[in-house]
């Protein structure tokens, strides 16, 4: 989403007042809310059916389904908001299976007293994100909870996509010798969020990287149909995701610190806050693992796509029964790259 789009989303709303319990009670107020906010902005033929569910029609190929719930503070952050994030998160989860995302559902849990203008701004941003990704929101649900029983807005989205018979992508497919590639700089989303956290004394111009990756994935699969693993390093960042894959595939990994792209401002903020950029969340980046012979082709395909300009080969998969992820540090030593314990950044998403 560009800055101009964001402004559009911000200005689109002229709703007044706030959500109250009647908005979730099934009566007129709720019908109005659905019509004036949700249907108005998300409009498509499926929603227009007006039924409790959406009739989707038939597809050929295997189906993929992914669900994601979004609880985030703050709801609006540099480079995005919960609306866009809830679309991107689920579109990307479907895409990381190598599938083409087709439809989304969205459920809102709204806290009593939440400003209608903010709600509308979120829905507008969601609509824009869905349009950009080419994946319509075809059905939804709204519930209102009493004041104090929610945190503004929670959004749950589910995505359905279709997968070709030939594609076999999964966290258990990595093999010793494979190349590990990332699509761009690490940690932007987490730092963007953190920079807006209450009273943290640092300022950056970092925008969240939240974006849909289905088009990038399509380009990558066209270039290298045999990609073995795709995953987006969201919560827990690169380190958590590499560890997950290493455990699923029962392999080790060795990465090089100097090869991992990190935006200098993110690096500086991490330094200040005592964080490791490898542990910081991303919302618009992916990790790909492919055979060593395919690495150059895949990298080239990624770098010729606008969402993969900074793609980099960061390391290799190795045989290791302990499934350890290790890193050659910029100093020249070795260390383990571990899952973070507990929460490094309190509740990022």
């Amino acid at each position, binding site marked *: 989403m560009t800055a101009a789009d964001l402004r559009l989303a911000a200005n689109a709303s002229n709703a007044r007042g706030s959500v109250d319990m009647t908005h979730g009670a099934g009566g007129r107020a709720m019908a109005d809310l659905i019509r004036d906010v949700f249907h108005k902005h998300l409009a498509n033929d499926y929603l227009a059916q007006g039924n409790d569910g959406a009739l989707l029609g038939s597809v050929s190929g295997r189906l993929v389904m992914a669900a994601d719930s979004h609880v985030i503070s703050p709801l609006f952050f540099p480079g995005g908001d919960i609306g866009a994030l809830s679309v991107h998160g689920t579109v990307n989860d479907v895409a990381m299976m190598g599938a083409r995302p087709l439809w989304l559902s969205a459920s809102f849990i709204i806290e009593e007293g939440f400003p209608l203008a903010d709600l509308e701004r979120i829905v507008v941003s969601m609509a824009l994100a869905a349009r950009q990704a080419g994946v319509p929101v075809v059905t939804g649900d709204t519930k209102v909870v009493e004041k104090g029983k929610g945190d503004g807005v929670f959004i749950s989205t589910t995505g359905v996509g279709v997968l070709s018979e030939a594609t076999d992508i999964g966290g258990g497919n990595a093999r010793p010798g494979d190349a590990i590639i990332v699509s761009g700089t690490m940690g932007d989303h987490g730092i963007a969020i953190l920079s807006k956290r209450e*009273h943290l*004394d640092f300022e950056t111009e970092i925008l969240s990287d939240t974006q849909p990756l289905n088009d990038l994935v399509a380009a990558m699969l066209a270039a290298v149909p045999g990609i073995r693993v795709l995953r987006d390093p969201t919560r827990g960042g690169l380190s958590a995701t590499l560890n997950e894959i290493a455990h699923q595939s029962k392999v080790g990994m060795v990465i090089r610190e100097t090869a991992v792209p990190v935006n200098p401002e993110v*690096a500086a903020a991490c330094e200040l806050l*005592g964080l490791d950029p490898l542990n910081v969340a991303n919302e618009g980046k992916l990790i790909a693992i492919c055979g060593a012979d395919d690495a150059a082709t895949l990298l080239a395909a990624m770098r010729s796509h606008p969402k993969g300009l900074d793609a980099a080969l960061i390391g290799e998969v190795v045989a290791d029964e302990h499934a350890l992820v290790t890193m050659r*540090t*910029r*100093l020249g030593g070795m260390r*383990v790259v571990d899952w973070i314990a*507990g929460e490094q950044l*309190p509740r990022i998403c």
Partner: protein
Amino acid sequence: MKYVDEYRDRDLARTVAAAIAAEADPDRSYHFMEFCGGHTHAIFRYGVQDLMPENVHFVHGPGCPVCVLPVARLDDAVELAERYGVILCTYGDMMRVPGTKQRSLIRAKADGADVRMVYSTADALRIARENPDRQVVFFAIGFETTTPPTAVALKTAEAEKLGNFSVFCNHVLTPSAISHILESPEVRDLGIVKIDGFLGPSHVSSVIGSQPYEFFAEEFQKPVVIAGFEPLDVMQSVLMLIRQVNDGRCEVENEYTRVVTEEGNVKAQTLVSEVFELRKSFDWRGLGTVPYSALRIRDRFAKFDAEKQFELSVKASREVKSCECPSILRGVKKPTDCKLFGTVCTPQSPVGSCMVSSEGACAAYWTYGRFRDQQPSKLEAAE
């Protein structure tokens, strides 16, 4: 990144490593204690040990404020939150440290206590201003570096006449703890802990200066190098220590001249002494009772002293028996000597404080270094 990357430069690291290898006498071994957890963290995070010759060893010391806070004080904090219903503000790591019966502030929070993580004392003051009908207690921990901000908070509270703010003071002093370690029988008589010199914490010295270490460099005949926290700082300091050992010198040297001076930050020292005074003794987790090793709030600020405002009843607290934190903090044992290490006790479910803080030796071993024991061959494989 200017002023940071220079201190992580690989070529420079190689040069310093070569100098260390050339100057370290192969017929002797060198054991240097890094007092501060920040150094422990840097050593592991950047794999500094890989660049050292075999006969140069790091001994991890007690310099992590979270690790050295005795369980009783932590139990007190839990009591403040639970029994008195205050808003208890604390720095992040402190939330997860298990107290008696593994009870931590994070557990108390889950059970309904109002515990809030803050990034600075200013946050705690703000929370007090925003909640005039609630008592707000700032759970203050840390060495000389975190003390001045606490002093500022107390003075601000006094100036603003904040009636609902107090500080639970647990600030401790570095030099007394180092002397205590050197006095211990393990070091003095038995030689179980071999220490040939110290890496002194640079941020502490940016406040107190390098001068406070001169006494025990002389008294205990141990060289001290005040070392910055970047990996190259650590390596350069090791080289300086090796030279001192080789020459038979026992001096306080300053590697971190870009910040530290002999007398330190006099303004901060004045501020601290205006607000705090020495405690006759203080219990340290791992070191036991150390005389004159901590600060308490002066009477003038009694209204803002949680210890005087609340009656804290916790006296008998218990640590898990098999946890080796006390020995680890004194450098007597290594994390891997603990039976619970990596099995029952991991950063996800820490048993002792050394596993909680990212500066704790157990956490650093587990997070960054455990492959050293699991797969000694991996290093070569990765070359």
